[in-house]
């Protein structure tokens, strides 16, 4: 059987990785003479088996990494004072929430950083889309401005944080701006490229149908570039958080960045890790929301493609 259908057996092996439904449609079924109902049950059974296998592997990996860390530091093969310890991190997180910090409660710090990151993200993304679409659709504008964009992109923009501290002090404006600057470039380059990738045939067709330039931007260019823009938003939110944190570390009166600096000042590795864990959770929640937004805005795409970036 296998000799006669080498391709079918290959598909069945791959199906462990993908969904096992592929093996049911991808080649001749290795199990003949089954009623349709039985076959559906079998497919769903195989699919669940595949899922459990993946979950099992993921759990095992987590146990090995976190357990190994805990074990190595508990045995003092690795210094827990320098590198932290999972139980210590959890305990530190608990005390942070219970006792707060010298400059206010822990949730308040989270909210401050979140506010800076979200506002920075919105400002940067809006500016990036606006500039990307304008420069992508206007050849003259792009010729004039693109060398400057390249120069600004080449300089280490994170250092602008120092300027913003000098200019705007310890408040949230400077943090928002640094986050916005970092987000802008990611979104801008994607929006620009997305606009350039629009099928000229589709634009020609819209023009013949009577579209004015604004019609083309609204009905053709922007939706077409949206695939690119949305893909960039995932990375961009990460940059917004980094921008807000770094700006806080450079000088602030509130925020998670300040919690990190304080922990660093007291040689509190667990404290730094605890904030990192908090930020990771925030980013994952943002990622979840962005994925929902992506599904909604890009509902027109074939399912398999819109699922791919969600991994």
């Amino acid at each position, binding site marked *: 059987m296998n000799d006669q259908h080498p391709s079918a057996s290959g598909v069945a092996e791959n199906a462990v990785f993908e969904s096992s439904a592929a093996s049911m449609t991808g080649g001749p079924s290795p199990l003949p003479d089954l009623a349709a109902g039985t076959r559906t049950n079998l497919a769903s059974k195989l699919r669940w088996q595949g899922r459990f296998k993946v979950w099992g592997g993921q759990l095992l990996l987590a146990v090995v990494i976190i357990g190994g860390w805990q074990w190595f530091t508990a045995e003092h093969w690795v210094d827990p004072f320098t590198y932290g310890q999972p139980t210590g991190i959890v305990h530190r997180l608990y005390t942070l929430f219970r006792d707060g910090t010298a400059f206010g409660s822990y949730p308040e710090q989270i909210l401050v950083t979140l506010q800076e990151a979200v506002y920075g993200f919105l400002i940067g993304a809006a500016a990036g889309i606006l500039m990307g679409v304008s420069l992508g659709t206007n050849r003259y504008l792009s010729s004039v401005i693109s060398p400057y964009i390249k120069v600004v992109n080449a300089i280490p923009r994170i250092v602008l944080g120092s300027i913003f501290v000098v200019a705007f002090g310890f408040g949230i404006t400077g943090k928002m701006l640094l986050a916005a600057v970092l987000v802008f470039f990611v979104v801008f380059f994607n929006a620009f490229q997305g606009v350039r990738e629009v*099928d000229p*045939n589709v634009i*020609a067709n*819209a023009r*013949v*149908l009577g579209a004015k330039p604004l*019609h083309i931007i609204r009905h*053709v260019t922007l*939706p077409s570039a949206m695939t690119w823009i949305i893909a960039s938003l995932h990375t961009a939110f990460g940059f917004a958080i980094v921008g807000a944190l770094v700006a806080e570390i450079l000088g602030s009166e509130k925020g998670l960045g300040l919690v990190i600096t304080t922990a660093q000042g007291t040689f509190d590795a667990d404290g730094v890790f605890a904030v990192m864990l908090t930020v990771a959770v925030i980013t994952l929640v943002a990622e979840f929301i962005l994925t929902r937004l992506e599904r909604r805005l890009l509902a*027109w795409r074939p399912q398999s493609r819109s699922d791919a970036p969600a991994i």
Partner: protein
Amino acid sequence: MTWVTSLLSVAAMSLTHGASPHSARVELNGVSKRFLTPSGDVFTAIQDVTFAVEPGQFCALVGPTGCGKSTSLSLVSGLDKPSSGTVSVGGTAVDGIADGVSFMFQTDALLPWKSVLANVALGPIFRGASKREAQASARDWLRRVGLAGFEDRYPHQLSGGMRKRVAMAAALINEPRILIMDEPFGALDVQTKAIMSNELLALWEQVRCSVIFITHDLDEAVALADRVVVMTSSPGTVKDIYDIDLPRPRGDVQEIRFQPRFVELQRQIWRSLRDEVERAYAATAGVPA
């Protein structure tokens, strides 16, 4: 007598383009189009092209690959400007996107992020109709191309033939005087192509706009057209013009192929086209001509 006809033609011209197919004469007169290649050479795509399409006529343009057929059509639609010569539609020279012209491309020009209904409704919306009017009209056209019930699908959910029908509805909804088709069925399989050709003929017999139709398929050209224009290999120019006197309505394009008159015309045009195709092939394949 002459003033009567001129008065009639003026009256016809003054009607709106949707109501009057008579202002739909397309004329190319000594048209050339040259491009500057990136290496700085001048490339002549078409040279001294002269032909006319009468109002309501179905004209097929055949010629070897790369002979400038598509270039000629982009000049008629106003997407491009001729380097010399004049292109006129309904007696006025084309300057910018010509009014009353629709274009159907070989590749899908449907917007993948819009539903079938929204795609067809684009033409009227671009021309300032309200959303409600545009959608009502789009629904009507989808019904006419046999796609009632598919309004909410996205293009990627349709078969190749169905997408072509959507494109046809999207092109015809503006009630064009002139419909330009650049190998519209080139990417379809032979059976689907035959079905689509029949449907195109049936629709066209209702609306009777002038059609310029590019194809590589000589059978398709003879079966559909009233006039076949044969172009030479690059730089393209008009070699021969044949008027096809097969009676209308033509009926099934698959059946008409067996009529003696069809075979005779097909053979005659192929004799003219063959030299050009061989020359074009030799030029691209590097075989001495």
